[in-house]
């Protein structure tokens, strides 16, 4: 591990562990700092208008990331049929969310909506990053508030196509494309091919699907592999096959509304991507 200049460089370990920190005894000051940091990183889930807790939920659709959230905004959500019933307040090094429900598609937020005509249908748009030490809290506080009997979960998420492992090069793949993972209890048809080995899913989508697998809740995750990191209409439209699924079929709004919404996203991204005034 000596470089050409002779200094010794420690190779980073895939095991991801910094052992030196663990070996050191924690002083009272360290403990105090750690506790303060943990308190700051605690997430709050604020529900409103729920008759009881745990509330009944038959369908829970979670859109994680800006493009997945924008898909729900374009094709499902509107201010007539849906009402906001919950918000997540959190802070981490990447983002901060507040309890406001008036948000732009480019903001960081995590909101819950309920279908007015069927209050057991819940939607979540989570465009903020939930850090790895906050994911478990998110699960316990969100799922802890709902009854699990008769619940079915659908998760929408995106990730870079460069993460997709395949025999061929990812340059030749036609992206964006959808892949699915489902829990043992999920019996319905999936809208795209299943994710092949050795691919894995991480972060909040993985946390939600793991929870559902362990507690035997039927759930399906649709992962969109895309080569665009920002809000992008091509990526948003890649989720369209889901509109024919049993879960979303009855919730799709008017086509003209969707086109208007997508046009709005196009202009929103254009103005933000121009670094010249």
């Amino acid at each position, binding site marked *: *591990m000596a470089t050409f200049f002779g200094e010794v460089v420690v*190779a*980073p*370990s*895939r*095991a*991801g*562990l910094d*052992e030196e920190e*663990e070996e050191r005894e924690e002083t009272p000051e360290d403990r105090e700092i*750690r506790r303060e940091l943990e308190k700051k990183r605690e997430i709050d889930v604020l529900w409103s208008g729920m008759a009881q807790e745990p509330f009944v939920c038959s369908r829970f659709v979670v859109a994680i990331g800006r493009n997945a959230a924008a898909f729900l905004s374009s094709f499902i959500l509107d201010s007539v049929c849906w009402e906001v019933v919950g918000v997540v307040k959190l802070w981490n090094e990447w983002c901060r969310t507040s309890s406001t429900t008036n948000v732009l598609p480019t903001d960081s937020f995590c909101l819950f909506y309920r279908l007015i005509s069927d209050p057991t249908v819940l939607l979540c748009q989570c465009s903020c990053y939930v850090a*790895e*030490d906050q*994911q*478990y809290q998110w699960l316990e506080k969100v799922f802890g508030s709902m009854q699990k009997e008769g619940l079915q979960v659908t998760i929408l998420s995106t990730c870079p196509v460069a993460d*997709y*492992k*395949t*025999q*061929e*090069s*990812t*340059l*030749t793949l036609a992206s964006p494309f959808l892949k699915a*993972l*489902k*829990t*043992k209890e999920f019996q319905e048809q999936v809208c795209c091919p*299943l*994710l*092949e*080995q*050795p*691919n*894995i*899913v*991480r*972060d*909040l989508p*993985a*946390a939600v*699907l*793991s929870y559902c*697998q*362990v*507690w*035997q809740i039927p759930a399906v*995750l649709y992962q969109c592999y895309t080569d665009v990191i920002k809000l992008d209409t091509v990526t948003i439209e890649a989720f369209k096959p889901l509109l024919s699924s049993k879960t979303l079929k009855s919730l799709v709004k008017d086509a003209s509304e969707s086109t208007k919404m997508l046009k709005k996203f196009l202009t929103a991204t254009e103005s933000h991507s121009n670094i010249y005034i």
Partner: protein
Amino acid sequence: MFVPCDRGGGSAASDFKGFTLLMPAVSVGNVGQLAIDLVISTLDMTKVGYFYTDCLVPMVGNNPYATAEENSTELSINAEVYSLPSKKLVVLQIRSPFIKNKYRPFCEALLSWVKGSRCARVVVLSSSHAYQRDDEQLLGTPLRYLLTPDLEKAVGGLMQELNWKEMEKVAAYPGISDTDKVLHIPGGGITKLLFTESCSKGIQMAVLLKFCSEGDNIPDAFVLVNYLNEWLQLVKSEVNSSSQWKIPSSWRLLFGNGLPPALF
């Protein structure tokens, strides 16, 4: 906490009385985890439950031990338990790193599960940084073992017969000759914590580790699993020491995708 796959099994599903629990430490080169993959894949072990915890980074994927279309769509998560009752073997596989500050809570949860499920003994497969070996350790076998006092009584003699080398203690302050000797497993993850906690809790635990560096650690995994096999005799020892282990289908593409043709 341990959550069985089959709720209907009742308490029988979580009773591993007299079983040997085999598990990896997330350590340099991920050698322990690779070795565990070989054990699960070769013995065709059945998944019996999950170790549901907030201490590990979440991850999911389809069955890493898939052999055919039919069994390739079962979801796997970051910590799962497999069993082979005919060999009284239960295996915990860990597939992701620890979340910061969560090593100690995980060790506590794990050891409390070990006691509750009445496992007879625990075997931890681990590894340690090869570059931290002293002059003597650079020579001879790169494999080491450790036994808690309770297990030493039971199998210490067998280790002597197998001619295995115990992990050496090192000086607490290198360079100063008359300081105390301490156990030091650099790059071993939670290995040392698990071992010292087991010593004080009277748990029968063995640690089997290999000195290695980051890189292509598949050969290290084979060496470690053959070392384990010398003791536990899980598979028949062959002359060609890698042919008796089955590589799981998830070991494909470990070093990236195919190359773009436009490169040439």
